[in-house]
């Protein structure tokens, strides 16, 4: 018995020694690899910390009321934080962001689900698959600024007519609805690919069982695929929301830049991202701090939304 343990020990030590002989180069190399991975984590945490530090003046002055204040009156003359008489609140932008992203999600959903069903269930390869894949890839590759440019010169006149037709007061073609339409087109590729991934997670044997009972494809989709994938599709919607919340340039060009609380979906407004893009280059010390605070809130929300969405999908793929 004793002998055996000794033997084990000696093997163990010999193994340890061989590890030690692994070479200095290898140990340094492994440290370098680990270090490169950790840099990302440090940078990510650093973003939070430096946004927080720069937002402190605004957090101290406005406190939690920042989220419920509806006025946005920056003081651009003040030279220092003490003399700055700005009244700043984020509520108009929070509402603007929720309305824009919400409408965009609703508009994009039918298209995203249809595309996902086509490339995830009906045509898993072949021409139709390639066709839709290429189109969504191309749409995903178009930069935000070009969507905004196109929206401003092409979509705006069209929607202006639409708004006049709907009898909107002060119709000018810019505002929440216009931004939401462009935003919907922008997030379709993303939500379609997410939805397709979850549709493909549906076990083949479940579908085959339904087919063998004589179900048609429509019935399989309605009674097997959609119920099974519903939590995943919900996660896809949540993740798409995360994408829509932070979209900046296209929205900035189309939202109409108004800092008052929007009351209708055709009103001009500002989203959290667009007020940062528009206002951060302006003078005003307190305004800069407040915009950074808005950035911090936006980042917290998108991070939360992302964690939630990924958690649901992960749970679903583990169960499946």
């Amino acid at each position: 018995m004793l002998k055996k343990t000794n033997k084990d020990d000696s093997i163990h030590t010999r193994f340890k020694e061989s590890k030690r002989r692994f070479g200095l180069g290898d140990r340094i190399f492994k440290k370098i690899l680990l270090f490169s991975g950790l840099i990302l984590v440090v940078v990510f945490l650093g973003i939070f910390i430096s946004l927080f530090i720069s937002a402190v003046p605004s957090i101290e002055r406005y406190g939690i009321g920042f989220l419920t204040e509806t006025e946005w009156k920056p003081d651009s003359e003040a030279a220092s934080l003490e003399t700055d008489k700005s009244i700043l609140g984020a509520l108009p932008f929070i509402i603007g962001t929720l309305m824009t992203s919400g409408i965009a999600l609703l508009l994009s959903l039918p298209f995203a689900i249809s595309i996902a069903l086509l490339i995830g269930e009906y045509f898993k390869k072949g021409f139709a698959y390639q066709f839709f894949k290429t189109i969504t890839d191309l749409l995903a590759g178009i930069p935000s600024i070009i969507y905004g440019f196109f929206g401003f010169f092409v979509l705006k006149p069209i929607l202006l007519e639409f708004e006049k037709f709907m009898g909107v007061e002060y119709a000018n073609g810019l505002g929440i609805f216009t931004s939401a339409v462009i935003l919907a087109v922008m997030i379709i590729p993303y939500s379609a690919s997410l939805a397709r991934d979850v549709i493909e997670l549906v076990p083949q044997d479940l579908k085959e069982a339904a087919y063998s009972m004589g179900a048609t494809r429509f019935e399989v989709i309605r009674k097997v695929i959609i119920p099974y994938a519903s939590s995943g599709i919900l996660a896809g919607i949540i993740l798409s929301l995360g994408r829509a919340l932070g979209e900046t340039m296209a929205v900035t060009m189309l939202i109409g830049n108004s800092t008052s609380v929007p009351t209708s979906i055709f009103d001009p407004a500002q989203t959290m991202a667009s007020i940062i893009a528009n206002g951060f280059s302006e003078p005003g010390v307190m305004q800069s701090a407040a915009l950074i605070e808005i950035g911090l809130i936006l980042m917290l929300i998108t991070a939360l939304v992302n964690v939630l969405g990924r958690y649901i999908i992960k749970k679903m793929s583990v169960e499946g």
Partner: protein
Amino acid sequence: MVGKNNIKRRQISNGIFKGLIITIASLIIVPLVAILAFIVIQGISVINWEFLVTPKQLISKGGGGIAHSLLGTVILIIIALVASVPIGILAGIYLSETRKGKIAYMVRMTVELFQGVPSVIIGLVGYLWIVVPMGNKSALAGGITLALMMFPLIIRSTEETMKLVPHSLKEASLALGVPYYKTILKILIPTGMSGIVTGVLLGIGRIAGETAPLLFTIMGNSYINANIFKPIDALPLLIYNYATGPSDELHAIAWGASFILIMFILILNISARVFFRKQEM
């Protein structure tokens, strides 16, 4: 329930549903074709050699060309590549080599979250971290800010590629007594090279059109500038400034610049696919 009628009805609703989703899905072509057609029609008329090699001029002289922004975009991309690719590849290898463990999980989680950070916030961070300490906006600040956007993309694509490299290759090399670092540098990286290049090309395509990170970091410049410590212009920023500008000449130039930008991104995406096919063969 009368069987025959019932079956017919079910088959009809099956057909209707298929037709319906094909119709809805096909509508996605409309915005794509509209956007591309508009840019090609409006853009191609202003594009000629002069347009590409002249910098900005007064509007009375026609507004000039886009040479200053074109050069700016190239410089920004080079800075972003230098700052993000080597370390991104190393981090990607770290993740593919470390499948388990708390630190790897944390890094993997961060990659996901980092990709979700809105680009305008990355712009704010670039401003706070580089513009404020340096005292002025510059190409360097813009490049580093774009590198922040690219970093998680490179990590992700490298990790995915490295997972595909056969385990036997690595084991064979280690069995021959080749040190670990040499195995990675001389066996794994060359084997996965085309995948890594694909990831880098796609990453460039992603950042080339980014505007929000540049808003607060590069300032824009009407002249040709190659000094990375000075303000610089970039294609997407030019499109933003000109598109929101007052005159038709500027809008025409912005369409031309959009055409160039779209073409650039398209070529990057196609070459990425070609590289990827090569790897599969």
